[in-house]
């Protein structure tokens, strides 16, 4: 039997089918499970080899994108998710999924870096320009610790589509730790791979250090704002009519699937 990925569907999830396609192309079965269904049998999560939190607008982004989905993760599945992560199985949160991973405290530090009053040390807030934007970006795989980006040396081209993708931390110390821990998984770059240095729209949302994605200290949980699942075929690339061949988003999923299959 092929390894299986669980795609968690919350109220308002909408890139679930897109990521399922990417995972299947990468060689793994993708199974959709609505959150309410998983609540009935929480342990079912542990039957899967990968957990995917897809993009969308869970609970209408009320009180901040990903916030209420994060609350669900902590209220209903805290133990199961923590067992899943500790066992080393891969987890990916894309866009809204990334927001939920950060706002549940799973990223960047599995809750270890939470503040004294329980507040979170990092957030994804409103884009610097103050608006939702959909546009294509270049992202560079950086982390060699992250099982999803490890060994990838080519830039990935894919769209972003978000209003709250601006990654910020509570202080510089935490940022340095994330960096020195090799937890910066992906950054926004120019076409040639050089740093965006905060320049809009190369860095489309104002994220600190041009961060597009981060992983947990263990390296098996990745959260990212861009949508590599929307660039898994040549004809999704904006310039395919100019002979530019694409699908550079697929490698990330192939990497994750390869890792999941090796466990």
């Amino acid at each position, binding site marked *: 039997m092929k390894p299986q990925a669980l795609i968690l569907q919350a109220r308002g999830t909408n890139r679930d089918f*897109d990521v399922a396609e990417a995972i299947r192309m990468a060689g793994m079965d993708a199974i959709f499970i*609505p959150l309410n269904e998983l609540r009935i049998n929480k342990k079912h999560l542990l039957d899967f080899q990968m957990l995917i939190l897809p993009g969308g607008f869970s609970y209408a982004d009320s*009180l901040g994108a990903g916030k209420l989905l994060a609350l669900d993760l902590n209220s209903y599945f805290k133990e199961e998710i923590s067992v899943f992560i500790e066992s080393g199985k891969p987890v990916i949160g894309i866009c809204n999924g990334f927001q939920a991973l950060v706002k549940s405290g799973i990223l960047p530090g599995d809750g270890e870096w939470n503040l004294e009053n329980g507040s979170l040390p990092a957030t994804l807030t409103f884009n610097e320009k*103050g608006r939702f934007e959909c546009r294509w970006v270049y992202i560079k795989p950086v982390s060699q610790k992250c099982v999803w980006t490890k060994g990838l040396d080519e830039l990935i081209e894919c769209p972003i589509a978000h209003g709250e993708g601006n990654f910020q931390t509570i202080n510089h110390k935490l940022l340095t730790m994330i960096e020195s821990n090799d937890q910066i998984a992906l950054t926004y770059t120019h076409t040639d791979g050089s740093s965006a240095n905060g320049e809009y729209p190369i860095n489309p949302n104002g994220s600190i250090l041009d961060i597009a994605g981060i992983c947990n200290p263990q390296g098996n949980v990745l959260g990212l704002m861009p949508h590599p699942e*929307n660039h898994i*075929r040549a004809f999704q690339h904006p310039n395919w009519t100019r002979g530019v061949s694409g699908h550079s988003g697929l490698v990330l999923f192939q990497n994750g699937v390869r890792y999941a299959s090796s466990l």
Partner: protein
Amino acid sequence: MIVHRVITCPIQSDPRAAKILSAAHVLEFHQLQRVECQNLYFIESQLSHEELQQLALKLFNDPITQSVTSDEVPSKSPAPASFKSDTVILEVALRPGVTDPVVQEIVRAAHELGFLSVHRVATGLRFILQYESSVSKSEANFLSASISAALLANGVIQHWKIGHIEPYFPEEVESTGAVETISIRNLSDGELLALSQDRRAALDLNEMKAIQAYCCKENRDLTDVEFETIAQTWSEHCVHKTFKAKIDVRYPGHEARASSIDSLIKTYLKSATEEIDAPWIRSAFVDNAGIIDFDDEFEVSFKVETHNHPSAIEPFGGANTGVGGVIRDVLGVSHKPIANTDVLCFGGQTTSFDRLPKGVLHPRRIMSGVVSGVQDYGNKTGIPTVNGAILFDEGYTANPLVFCGCIGIAPKGLHTRTPQEYDRIIILGGRTGRDGLRGATFSSMTMNAKTGEVAGASVQIGDPITEKGLIDVVIRARDLKLYHAITDCGAGGLSSAVGEISAAIGADIELKSVRLKYAGLAPWEVWLSEAQERMVLAVAPQNISALQELCDTFDTELTDIGVFTGNHRLVVRYDSNIVLNLDNEFLHEGIPQRQLKAIIDNSICGDAKAEYQISNIETKDVLLKLLSHPNITSKSSVIHLYDYEVQGGTVIKPLTGVQADAPSDAAVIHPLVTKGPTGIAIANGINPEYGKRDAYNMALAVVDEAVRNLVATGADPSHIAILDNFCWGDPLCPETLGSLVEAARGCHDAALLFQTPFISGKDSLNNEYLGADGQQHAIPPTLLISSIGIMEDITKAVTTDLKEAGNTLFLVGEFKPVFGSSHFNLVADEAIEEAVPSVSAITPKVFHAAHQAIQSGLIRAAHDLSEGGLSVAIAEMCIGGRLGAKLTLNASDPLRTLFGETTGCLLLEASEGKKDMLLNLFRDLPIQRIGMVTKEPILNIQFSTFTAIDLTVDQVVRAWNQPLQPEIMQ
């Protein structure tokens, strides 16, 4: 219960506040120096102070971006000391009954965190407005009131207050279920009309008399539920009575030509579809959306709606629910929505406030609100917005037009539309409130300065996440074959949805079963409410539990409100008492045909070609002005606000080229569920400028445009379906109706010429505004033709951007440029008055040849000639490729060649090696070799005697990237 306030304040720079400040400065409120925006949450609960603080910390806090404070309402403490006398605190909250999708999420989350005593929540906004120190307290209050009215609150849905505002929680009063009896049998003509007006029914005397006759026949009076139901069912919005009317047409000066038309729909639109008789049409005009074949396995649907009147008074909510409504149309044919389109028409963004009719929102505010509304709904339902247009004209100042389209896909054979006797009548989705009462009749009325005030109840606010749940449930229920019929709740609410779905069989409804947002609704209000996000299904009793299970999984409410009976009567009860009992035939067929008069005066159309004499025109400047014209300039600032990538199928995107900033002619979708290379191309044609002068030729031209945009992208011209959307003024004005008749005739002739059948249509009439000045303001006659084509192989699609230096440029099609109603006339100092372009009979052949060329791989880039003519088309191709073009034109009239507008023409880029094959394909058709693509990024256009255009591509790009909403107003 106590009501607590929780306030969150951003602690970093806040783009929302910055936008308000800059908008206030645009409106010349220069005394305003600083703005702070805070979010207000009103929590009705029995929480202790400590619990409240915990809740605030857990639910509302994000220490990196915002601080949170909480206290009780009403606050006894005055404004914090840090606010000086030149600072005003202004709070905004929603009016009673306005949908607020966030609050239910907050209540749910509070309960999830264990704060079970949280009962209800309301939200608001709090603005800290700081003025120059020279501004006195009373001045500051006065300025704040003006800023609030202009920018911060819309009185239709919100109220505001300087200082602390009270939230509104609806009182939980039970409805008495009282039903009013309306005596009609003995009313005089005058009294009948007065009744129609009093109840805002928009029915004319004949229609009122038909109701009277029915009452006499049944020997009884009507209940208010019955009267309102008839008014909704017979509204222009629901039955299109103008398009079904008998029209006497008169031609001044040509009295012998007088004629009579029995129904515009039958005569011009359906007849064209029947005559073309395309084998790939699966459903035209009969269902919620038109349906055509996609491939052997799938079919696709397309529907375009308008939501003009609601968008005029509450732009965000109006556009938001416009998108929501058309998505449900597609869901109403059991299709999964896969793409949205939006065509928007606004007044000039720099209109001065003095020229604004009273009671009308500024076009800037309308545009911002409409665009946000489209963005919010499309993005949150996960449907890519892939095609559209934005046009500006003074005529849209009071009556903006919002066309919302949706495309869906489904495996063939799954959509069923026949309810069975004993099936249950099921509502899925949102709850029912007072939202949008009398929306159908409201949309059929002319607006006046007070419309905003009295029609407040007609405004609906959408809840896209509930709609997303509906989509998730309906598509699965369809695959499991859990229902026999489905329709959406649109204008007229349940009355119209249940009325339609049960028309052939009959229904018995219990209104008390309908789940309400708040109690206290009268029976007629429940029955007619236009609360959003509801579908009505016919479900066999044995399938209810399976459907309920699906609904539970996707957090969607299911309500059983009655049964299909088979007795051909519509019976509605409240608490078992019958409040409506009407004969279906009377309700659906009893409306008398309207008798209307039209006058067609073609003398205003102008001469075919005028002689003109304009010297000293700097052609380069005209081109730059055209590129900067709001109708032509880049729409990228809006396009990027829409998620055009979700669902992963957008293979030709709304913007194209090296920098992804040039316009595409059409979008191409390769739906994720399909496996083959087949795709869908989507485009539109619209030209109100032509409409002002010559409605018939305008219709031909926009059908041509809608088709040529598809052809330019690679769609097969023999597999294109089109949709009509007519937005006109008052059809009771014979001249207005005359131009509508001419446009419909043009639609008919164009459809036959191009063999493109109509599969669906919509009209929005009475787009007129009676200003406080007593003048009637009507919109330009506006016809939107939306087109959908099948592309057998998406890998053959071409885009508009120039691809490679050295390639040859060809102009194909009958090139007959004219200036009538051209954009040249809009930017030139002196307009050249002549006829609008006509459509050549040879054009379909040109399109087929172009398609052949694209299919054969001869074409690298293609772009159609539209507003601004040849020069604008080639400039846009240069922008896309960031390459130059050198054109050598052989024409006696350079100005006409460069800027005149024509139909049926495309610019094609082909490599030198493919040139002969292309010429061969066009051997009996108009084709001109006009130039080549150059590496040097310069647009150079030569005539035999002089250089007309010599611009760097950078200059062209700069001109084309004008902001749609300039910062400084003239």
